[in-house]
């Protein structure tokens, strides 16, 4: 991770097809102050354009709790993006 510093970044978790698109289930990215989960998502979409198709169906969890795209996030947080689920 030459473009990110562990101490200053958020940990991004991706699952299922989102993980396939990004080629990894875990990334670390720096976030500006005032960032929200949506800021992080937009950063991902700019890196992996195929993720854009999930704009209306993705769910987000912050620090292992379901959250909202407008939730503030800060360094050290774990932000997970979840495609539509299919358990059972």
């Amino acid at each position, binding site marked *: 991770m030459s473009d990110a510093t562990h101490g200053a970044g958020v940990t991004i978790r991706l699952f299922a097809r989102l993980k396939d698109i990004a080629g990894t289930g875990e990334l670390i990215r720096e976030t500006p102050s005032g960032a929200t989960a949506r800021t992080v998502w937009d950063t991902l979409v700019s890196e992996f354009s195929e993720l854009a198709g999930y704009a209306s169906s993705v769910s987000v969890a912050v620090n292992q709790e*379901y959250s909202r795209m407008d939730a503030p996030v800060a360094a050290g947080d774990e932000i997970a993006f*979840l495609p*539509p*689920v299919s*358990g*059972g």
Partner: protein
Amino acid sequence: MSDNRPAMPTAPYAITTDRLSLDDLIQAVTMESSDEVGPGGITTFVGVVRNENAGRRVLRLEYEGYEPLALRAFERIGTETTDRWDVRVALHHRLGTLQIGEASVMIATASPHRADAFAACRYVIERVKQIAPVWKHEFFEGGDVWIEGATADPDDDAARQDAVRVAGLE
């Protein structure tokens, strides 16, 4: 209890790559408690891997999950269920590679009265399909595909009401 060891408490909620055991769930919902009326009936649901989906011949499923969030989702589903029905709930979900016929999810609901046990059990599986952060990677004859069902939103009241309606009591 055929020996003198104390019964191991069995977790009501679990997500694991281990094979599921219905006995574990039944034990979890029948643990003794002196301050409430005990079970008069137990309803169980076992979801198994089907050999067909959307006209495709399924070879196996690989389940992926976000384990810590899944456990919290299971606890949330359990609380929703016990808030509505007089039941105890156990819910175990399996992850990893499952062959046709293997159990992917098990639910047990115990209640003093059978109507609550049946309704609650149906509610739990509907909510699992709505909000559990678990995904099926389907391998079929000719390819593979991630199955995508519901957008997970625990606070979506319409979805919750759908599950109540399907459960059949309201």
